[in-house]
């Protein structure tokens, strides 16, 4: 799950939680130029796909957008 409220998602039972941007726009940043926003979104999706390949034994927060 990609979300700006990682600890909330983990608390509610999401296994792999990717840190998103902000509550109204977790998967992008409208303040960025289109190219920067695109790079950010690609990075988030890659982080999410990477997290799917990680072995975990409890709800885990992964770094996505910073």
């Amino acid at each position, binding site marked *: 799950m990609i979300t*700006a*409220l*990682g*600890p*909330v998602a983990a608390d509610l039972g999401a296994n792999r939680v990717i840190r998103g941007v*902000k*509550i109204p726009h977790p998967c992008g940043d409208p303040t960025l130029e289109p190219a920067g926003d695109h790079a950010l979104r690609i990075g988030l999706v890659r982080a999410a796909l990477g997290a799917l390949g990680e072995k975990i034994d409890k709800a885990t927060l992964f770094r996505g957008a910073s």
Partner: protein
Amino acid sequence: MSAKTLELGTFDVADVAFGDRTAFAGGKLTIARDEIATLASSDPAFAGVEVMLVRPHESVRIPQITDVIEPRAKSGGTGGVFPGLLSAVEPVGSGRTDRLRGVAVVTSGPVPWLGAKGLFVPHDSVLDMAGPGADLQPYANLHLVVLRFTFKDGVDHEGYERGLLLAGEKVARALALTARDAAPSSVEHRDLSRPAAALPRIVYAYQVQSQGVFMRSRLYGRVLDELQPTLVHPNELADGALTAGGLGGHGVKLHTWMHQNNAVVEHLVAAHGKRWDFAGIVLHRGHFYLYEDKQRVGLRIAESATLLGANGVVFTLGGAGNNVTEVMLAIQECERRGIKTVLITWEHAGPDGSDYPLPFAVPEAVAIVSTGNLDEPLALPKMDRVAGDQAIRVRPEIGGVPYPIDTAITLERRTFYAGAANPIGFGRSGSVES
């Protein structure tokens, strides 16, 4: 240093009627309809205004409410009511304030949507003065002076919001000024001087919603969209330093009347020096968009409570949704520091009340009082009269659909009912464990 002391003079209003001149005598408030209409509609946002009177528990449905305001005016001390808006930015909360009890000013009307989407649509609402809806909000016992505005084209939402805010406050102050030469029903002295006996020291962490146009609160006229937790004296609330200004989230909305008469503040003040030592209010805002911002709010509340020497903190919510996170993080930090906490909250418990009631919680939150379920359907009978449009507008995402209200209605959720699950405990709703 002398403590801030306020004499709050209450003038009970038993009757309200239209007449030749606006005056208060013998418990009767007379309103010159044209005079109040001229005062209310002077802002360029308005095409006109209709002034209507609604009696306590009358079978009336009031639609499209922006705000509810108790008439108050200063008759001594520095500053004026609604500082930063109607009055200069000067200290308020000391000297003398006069208030008319038993009457409130309601601003209403169909604010143009102007194609707005999402949160920032001036949503329509209803409020019933009789039937089951009357038990859910604090206004059914009052005489209401309803100002129903129509709006000029060519004004943006900022302009409509500001016009509505100031109009309600101007009329409220003008009505309170009529009591200047009358004898008050009671005068109460309010201060927070430290009691001689050792009593539990209590802080009130008061959350308000402020998220952009029509979802805002203001302190001394300043929009609180970026508010970091700040200390406020309860006497400042009595003088209207904190005001509402929104048209969203009606079910959980805090009107200016609720800030002026906040039930938590009233109880904390009433038993100050007897049952507890009320240390003051930490005003704060939820709905921050980053988790770290929510953590910062929680930390600042706990740090303020620590500096005030609190033994306990009472929390209430402003709005609904992710704003619970800030409050829960503050509760966690307070409890870790040995400061006891209690939360008063609505529930998002689903139509039958069986869902998990809060979007976020911490194990330290062990004392919670429910003010009722936001998601429970609400069946409202037909009222004899609608004080405004016979239909409200719903579904802004598809441009608006008229929803007739001149008949019996069932609201699937309580979002459109003003004050239906207000988070500071007004109204006769709540819930029990089963």
